[in-house]
């Protein structure tokens, strides 16, 4: 009898020990799984956050050098453990107002597809008209000449006019002939023109006179050099690198972007130095008394 009791007791102990061991194993596995999930999610979160910020800085710098009066606004971010996204408005500044607004979403690729009603006019599929630039050293089948359209416009409009010059001018020589109408300069890239395709604003590198809020820079050219240097360092963009090199050798401009009323622009572009003109963003403007 005594022996039997002892045996029951022993089997109980073994069972208990086994149960405890199972419980420990399950608990340990649970802790390990939870820890691995939390750790990897947080690592991914940090990584995504960091990657997104790098891309955002690159994009801001890209808008500083490319685009000719095209700016990018504040980013709205959404960072999650598995995936991060951001979007920002892009716009042109006409009379200090955002015009032709579009939304750029991560991974921040520019829209590529466009519609070409004629050889000298391009529209993005979202309706934005692209300003066209013509290099002085290249010859083209047809040059954009939209200056005559200004005569058909009411004086309550304000618009961008991309003016391609007949040759490249050094900055001192140019000496802002169009005065307060000028908002950006298209820079010489120092390359021999090999294509007879005009360059649209997405690929034109230039100096903006104002920042994205419409405030004038104290020294826009120095600002451009700073931004372009950072951009080239970060993205290894060879074209901007070439433009920067040419700029450092001798600062030359081959185009200028004007913003003003139709009449002002028409009169200003009467000059012989104007080779081609292309209209960009147009807004209604009723804030000044119209004569």
């Amino acid at each position: 009898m005594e022996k039997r009791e002892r045996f029951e007791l022993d089997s109980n102990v073994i069972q208990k020990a086994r149960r405890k061991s199972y419980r420990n194993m399950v608990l340990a596995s649970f802790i390990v799984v939870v820890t691995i999930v939390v750790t990897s999610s947080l690592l991914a979160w940090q990584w995504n956050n960091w990657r997104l910020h790098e891309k955002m800085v690159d994009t801001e710098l890209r808008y500083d050098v490319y685009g000719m009066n095209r700016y990018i606004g504040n980013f709205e971010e959404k960072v999650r453990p598995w995936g991060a996204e951001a979007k920002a408005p892009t716009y042109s500044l006409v009379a200090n107002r955002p015009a032709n607004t579009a939304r750029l979403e991560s991974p921040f690729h520019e829209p590529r597809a466009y519609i070409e009603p004629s050889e000298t006019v391009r529209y993005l599929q979202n309706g934005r008209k692209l300003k066209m630039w013509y290099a002085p050293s290249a010859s083209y089948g047809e040059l954009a000449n939209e200056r005559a359209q200004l005569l058909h416009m009411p004086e309550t409009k304000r618009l961008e006019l991309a003016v391609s010059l007949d040759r490249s001018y050094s900055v001192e020589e140019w000496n802002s002939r169009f005065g307060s109408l000028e908002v950006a300069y298209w820079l010489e890239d120092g390359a021999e023109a090999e294509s007879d395709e005009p360059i649209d604003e997405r690929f034109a590198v230039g100096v903006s006179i104002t920042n994205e809020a419409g405030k004038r820079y104290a020294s826009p050219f120095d600002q451009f050099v700073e931004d372009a240097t950072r951009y080239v360092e970060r993205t290894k963009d060879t074209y901007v690198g070439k433009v920067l090199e040419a700029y450092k050798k001798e600062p030359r401009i081959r185009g200028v972007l004007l913003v003003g009323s139709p009449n002002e622009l028409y009169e200003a572009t009467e000059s012989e130095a104007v080779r081609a003109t292309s209209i960009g963003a147009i807004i209604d403007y009723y804030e000044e008394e119209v004569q």
Partner: protein
Amino acid sequence: MNKTLQWILTIAIGLVIISLAWPIASFSLFGTAEGTSIFSIDYAIAFLLMIIPLFVVGLLAVSTYRGVTKWVYAGYGLATIEMLVLAGLVFSSLPFTIFVIGILFVSATSVYGLVQLKKER
């Protein structure tokens, strides 16, 4: 669990805790005037904010090295709590009191664990 895996997990936890404690520590220096000596009280606080959350990594490293399974798993549990609390403060709107209680609980337990490990030797 394989020892190599344990080390990988420990290092990953360390990375997460450092990358989350860093913004909190830098934010504590927000009001500090530029040019303040590195031995000032402000920097001491920032340094402590970096070091205190790392106690649990110390516990994990020691217990993994010695192979004391009990404290390895306890360490994982504590580290998970700590990572969630840190992420809650940095990325979300976790109340500051809960953050402080969580960090102090985890770090105090880690120190206790380290003392126990030293005794067991």
